[in-house]
């Protein structure tokens, strides 16, 4: 069984202050890194002889509109089957420069997850082979998961919003 401490120390030793904000919410090792380092970190974890954190469980985006300069965040969940060890890696990126390198070179599964993240938040994954919308219609001109856009379909007619605080 791999301990969070061990992995954290190894990563700190390798990347120094490029990995930071170590946390353990509900026992899951969480850390942040910069977008320059994310691909090396992922690759390091994947190819590490003993850790073998080689499964990209999940990749998604989050938006923090109030967090100026770090409005968007891409979250990677990795899993090592051998050690049954999970790790969460976060990368914050500013809205003004919404770019992050793609992980499709490392994991085939990253392809659609990145497309989805792009579709929802407009995060641009540099080097992605086919970064187009995946779930929404091509013609859509905004990124619907961003907090500023409404959820509702504006054409709904049968609802009275005035009732009970809606």
């Amino acid at each position, binding site marked *: 069984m791999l301990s969070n401490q061990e992995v954290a120390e190894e990563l700190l030793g390798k990347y120094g202050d490029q990995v930071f904000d170590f946390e353990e*919410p*509900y026992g*899951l090792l*969480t850390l942040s890194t910069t977008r320059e380092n994310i691909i090396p970190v992922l690759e390091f974890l994947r190819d590490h002889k003993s850790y073998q954190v*080689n*499964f*990209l*469980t*999940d990749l*998604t985006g*989050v*938006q923090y509109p109030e967090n100026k300069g770090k409005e968007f965040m891409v*979250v990677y*969940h990795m899993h090592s*089957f051998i050690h*049954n060890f*999970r790790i*969460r890696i976060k990368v914050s990126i500013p809205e003004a420069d919404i770019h992050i390198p793609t992980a499709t070179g490392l*994991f*085939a*599964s990253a*392809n*659609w*997850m990145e497309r*989805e993240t792009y579709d*929802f938040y407009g995060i641009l994954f540099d080097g992605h082979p086919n970064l187009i*919308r*995946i*779930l*929404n*219609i091509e013609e859509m001109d905004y990124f*619907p*998961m961003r*907090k500023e856009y409404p*959820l509702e379909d504006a*054409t709904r007619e049968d609802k009275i919003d005035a009732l009970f605080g809606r």
Partner: protein
Amino acid sequence: MAEIELLPHNVPSQAELPELVEELTTLNLGPTHPATHGIFQNILKMDGEKIVSGEQTIGYIHRAFEKIAERRPFYQITTLTDRMNYCSSPINNFGWHMTVEKLLQIEVPKRAQYIRVIMMELARISDHLICNSILGVDTGAFSGFLYVMQKREDIYEIYEEVCGARLTTNMGRIGGMERDLSTTAIRKIRDFIKTFPPVLQEFEKLMSRNRIFMDRTINVGGISLERALSYGFTGPNLRAAGLDYDVRVMNPYSSYEDFDFSIPIGQSGDTFDRYNVRIEEMWQSLKIVEQALNNLPEGPYYADAPEYYLPPKKEVYNNMEALIYHFKIVMGEIDAPAGEVYHAVEGGNGELGFYLISDGGRAPYRLHFRRPSFIYYQAYPEMCKGSTLSDAILTMSSLNVIAGELDA
């Protein structure tokens, strides 16, 4: 009225048709093709009947679950998860509840955990039943489908006894179950355990060792373990490729550590392996249901968490505190802590993950579903490359891509 223009790809005019220089045909499989259960599109480039390359278009039933989840109180998200993988909605349902319980740090009593296990395993059976029998339909054998559908009807009856609905069950609550298992429900589950094996055996007899079926499925749509992992396969599809990864064993939740079951694995990840893995998983699920039912502990079916679990109606009238809790819970004003949780359950199709970020508000700040169908369906062009059209269709149905889960 919203004006919707027709997509241009539908009927090309004579002038637009390409000249007969390239030898490849483009076949548009879907979105309404009968084999695309649920709705997605495959644009296949074909050389005769051989598939040269394929490209998928998805999102035809994109319903913005994640966006809705940001606007709804925690307890209302149940109705969303139900509709994600609708073949096995209780698994989604309880997976979500367990995620919230992890966030709120509620310990669910043993009885509720066992009831959840029973329901989840029944759901797994019904999910695999649909997948395997649809595989049968796609090979042309229709009757087996209707034989096992009768047993699925029995599962629905059990659901109905427990919660009052057949498909979108909404049977869990944060902190436990909505209802306890009634004696009738227990009787029905026992009946099911007794009557299901002969039907499944019959289905196996009809299909599994029939040479036509074996010829159709062996070495069709295979994927190597290495590629499967790279594509993020989990669940039966990964197990068919030969890796015994099962969330129920690796990260036991809801008392799965109490049960004895084995993890079926296949050899080369082809359609026949997937079929067999699913069949065997049904047997294992049945075993789990039996164990859980025999060892069903007595006790409450919900946690002692008055801030999160609705009080009994009687209390609401007589007890001021209960009334306040009732209002707070229904209004969604529970005091959820800020934090982030990732919780995974073994869904019908693989690791179904819930990544929940709470900022302490009434609704999740961000809720992301790790939807197995979405992740592994990208491998489809690679899997059907070089095979014939018929193979591609079997590959698709044995992958068990559920459109609701695919598009979310």
